[in-house]
């Protein structure tokens, strides 16, 4: 995550992680942090960009029936339920 990627790449990236739930969890924990959000914003991401990535993780966990990692910057469970 050294530079801003388009959302489509994020989708692919997360899709790839499905094969290894441990990797998915690790990536979700890394992304769902104030540090990552701060970095993204510093590099020019908008609030919507950040939100979209976090929602991708949240939706993925929901689709897979996994409980998202607890804690973190935002509650992914809450984000997944968001209309």
């Amino acid at each position, binding site marked *: 995550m050294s530079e801003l990627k388009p959302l489509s790449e994020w989708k692919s990236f997360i899709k790839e992680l499905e094969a290894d739930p441990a990797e998915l969890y690790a990536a979700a924990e890394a992304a769902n942090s*104030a*540090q990552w*959000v*701060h970095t993204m*914003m510093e590099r020019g991401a908008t*609030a*919507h960009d*950040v939100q979209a990535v976090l929602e991708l993780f949240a939706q993925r966990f929901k689709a897979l029936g996994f409980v998202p990692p607890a804690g973190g*910057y935002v509650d992914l469970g809450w984000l997944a339920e968001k209309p």
Partner: protein
Amino acid sequence: MALIKFPAFGTIGATLHTAVEHAKPAGEASVIPAWAPKAEALARPTRGLEALASLDLGVGLSDINEMRIVLTDAAKPATIERVGQETHRLVRLYKELTDAQPGADTTQLEEEMRKVAKGLTSRLAGQKGVFLSKNDARVDLVAPETAAKQAGAVADDAQGAGRRSAKVATAAAVAVDPITGERVVLQPMGRVVEDLPLTRFAELHGERSNRGAEAKILATDKAAVQSMRTLSDAELDKADLRKPDGPIEYVTLTGADGTDQTFTYPTRWFKKPSDLFARRMVIEGPFRGSYLDDVASKVDEASLSKATQESRLLWLSPKKSNVQPVISTVQVREAGEVKTKLRVRIPSTPDWTAVRQSQAQLAKALPDVKQIDDSKSTMFVFDPTNFAFIKKVAPAFASTKEAQLLVDGHVDELLKFEKALTPEALRKFSARAIGGFRETTVDNQGRIQPFELSSIQRSTLARLEMDGWRGAVTLGTGMGKTLVGITAMEMMAKGGEKRPFLVVVPDGLEGNFPAEIYAKRTPETAQRLADQLKVMTYTEFRRAVKKGELDGQPFDKSTFGAVIYDEVHIATDRRTANGAAILKFGHEHTIEMTGTPQPEPERLQAMDAGVRGLDLNSPEAKADRRKARKWRELLFTEVNGVTTGVKGPFELRRGLKIDPTRDMLEWIRSRFIYADNLKDDVALPKRTDVHLTLPMSTVFEDTYRKLAVPVKTALEGLVSIYRDQGLANPTEPVTSGRPKLTPQARDERVREVRKSLKTPIAELSKLTNTEEKLTQVGKALLEKMHEDEVGGLPASRSLLFTDDPKYVQESARVMSLRIPGKLHAACMGDRIDVYQNGEKLSSLGPYKLPFKEKAYRPDPSMPANSTTNREVPADQWRTFVLNNVLGQHPEVSTTTLFGPTYQTGQNLQWASTVVHLDRDTWSDFNMRQREARSLRRGQTRPVTVMHADYTFAKPQSTLDRTLDQVRELQAKNDRGLLQQTLVAAQDIKLGEGLKRARPSTAFDVNAPLPAQNDLGSFALGASPTPANVGQARAMP
């Protein structure tokens, strides 16, 4: 006090041993020279180191005429009163005995005298500061061997006089140094303040005085009667006194021994146009046309003049006539209320000119000291609170018993406050003693603890109860004012109050009291108390007061059991509608509560008036307003309408300084309940201040400066005033004379400009409320969240304050863009919006957005009930949304609040960062209030306070500051004034000053020499140095 070796008394005998034991600390006896010898003085009856062997009447009834009573300052009024009664009774019995017909059976009379004498002697032996002395005994203070001889001689004399035993252990020890000729007095129980023949003591302090007899004599003295007369017959017949101004009141000069000595006078209240208050005028009889208090005073003076002749006062100053200042009581009618005050009459002779002039100066300076018109500076009326000042000007005086009792009563009243705060007294204010509280509570560490009221809450309740459930309460934010309020109401209800309790709160805080009741009280007691509560906003309250009705019903204070004004700092200006409404309502049980200290003197006065039911705005309160203004001018330094500090001592005349500061602090201590968070049982978590300084860009700075030009002069003046107290050279100490002020501080235009600053300041504030600032704050908050993350803590949630309503919305929007995914609330007075990623949300969980004024319940999908889903009334919607929705929702990251609506009354400990987006207020205390929404009891995390201030990138001088920086200076001034008033008052022990200065007919040996000499009095200093002994001798 000097201690000198006292000769051994080993051979004097048991009685004298006892006296010396009292007198000597650590093996030495203290000896105070009380007066210097004069041949003529010594020719008077001398008193010696006399242990009164016995009042055995079988051997010396005539001793009564030779006995003297010596009072020291250790004597309590009650003891003096009691001894006065007993001596009076003894003298009366003695008179009956001596008047008895020869041969009459006086056995019963003698027996009764024995009993009384026994009681008296045992009382005097009780070491209460009252002593018995004898006229004809003396012991010279000499070298040890001579002392022994002298003492032995006295003891022999006593034996020779037939005294069979030495029963009385305590005696006043008075002696003469045969070498220096000085008379000295041992001080076993304090400083001697009165020394009178027993018969005179009985007359003065006995149960009944003899004023009637004195008045009878006075009535025959035509010159005296004429001198007292204020109105001639013709003037008396004029309309004033014929107008029915209350009924004729018949007043009897008290204490006549028999009916033939009773004088009763018809009186009416009379006030000359030039007078400050009304006094009783005698309208019939020998004293017709004279003020009653003048007559009473003349009688007292005549009486005290005799006392003076018989007391050592006259010996001390043989040159003087027997006149001296006399303090007596006087009844006056002020603002429709009859009050007893003190009156000092200073002799009109040239010897007393300096004292008269000083007292006149004092009357000009002190609001409660008033000079009687036409008295040529000889008569002054004053409150007991000012007694210490009067005494400072005239240290030697005589006073009537009534005056003494009035001051003592005032001292007792003050001491009552301290007594009410002892641990024993506070027991009745524990949660258990009051009852009805929940058993447990959660402390700030999240642990369940037994519920208890804090020591500050208990002492506050004690003070309120003692003052009849009224008072002005300033407790640091989060120290539980609301709990104090509901407990006070609970205690009043338990005491039988059935009427509703009125609670007046700022808009938006209607829910606080009910919420606190349900949170802290058991369900059954909570319901009862909540039902007795009537909550109104200040807006509703002032309208109801103005119209005299509410919802079509009369709105009258008598319908309420008490009224509590919450967050009263918004209503302490009597010129505002809210402030005026409180004063007009004037409920006898008024409790004013705030967490924002109000050290400004005018606000303190308004708060006190509100508590005491005095409508300072009414035409009748003109004198009170004048007095209040005089008080402020005396005590406080004011520059351009802003109080900058306490003045301190002032000079009445050269060498005589008066410091009214203590008086002011005693007033504050007795009237205001104040405690800051430092005094609380629970320490607050750590606070860290972060300053986000935003240097202006060149373009921005140019715009700012252009806009600031019209107020630049004023700002410089204000900076000078606030920072430097207006001094031109603030770093140089002021050694003498008036300090040099800056031109800005003197410039009247500064005052004018300050008035017109409002608009430009608003524009400057608006100019600095930029998106850039919000962006910087958003970044800082996100970094803070990151720090928390690294530290293993949940991300801190933030409260952002601004006084600009548009900036509230803008802030929430920008925060939602800078802190994505999270929720950001914008709390306005009439609505609360929630933003996410730059957009307003239309719903939040089960709630439709925005939140508006309407009834809410925790679960809108379920019917309301009284326990788990209690519906909160519409007027409590803001508290509900903040506590039950936003506070409970962990995704709400920032909450921007409109300062005037939300900076008080809300408990938002769920946030641990506070950001001041602006300083759009001139009050530092309001800034503290904002912070205290988070930094208060119950906060479990350290709190970070961020200040976002613009600064000039290129300041042109040290005074070249932005508005934000100027405001910070004002904040410092606010804190300084608080320290000098409310905080300093907490160290004052009420009544201590007056206790030391209470009146006596005595000579104050501890008074400083210069003052005594100014008065022409005769003094030795406390220490027997050759210098002051010599000085005393040199006195004619």
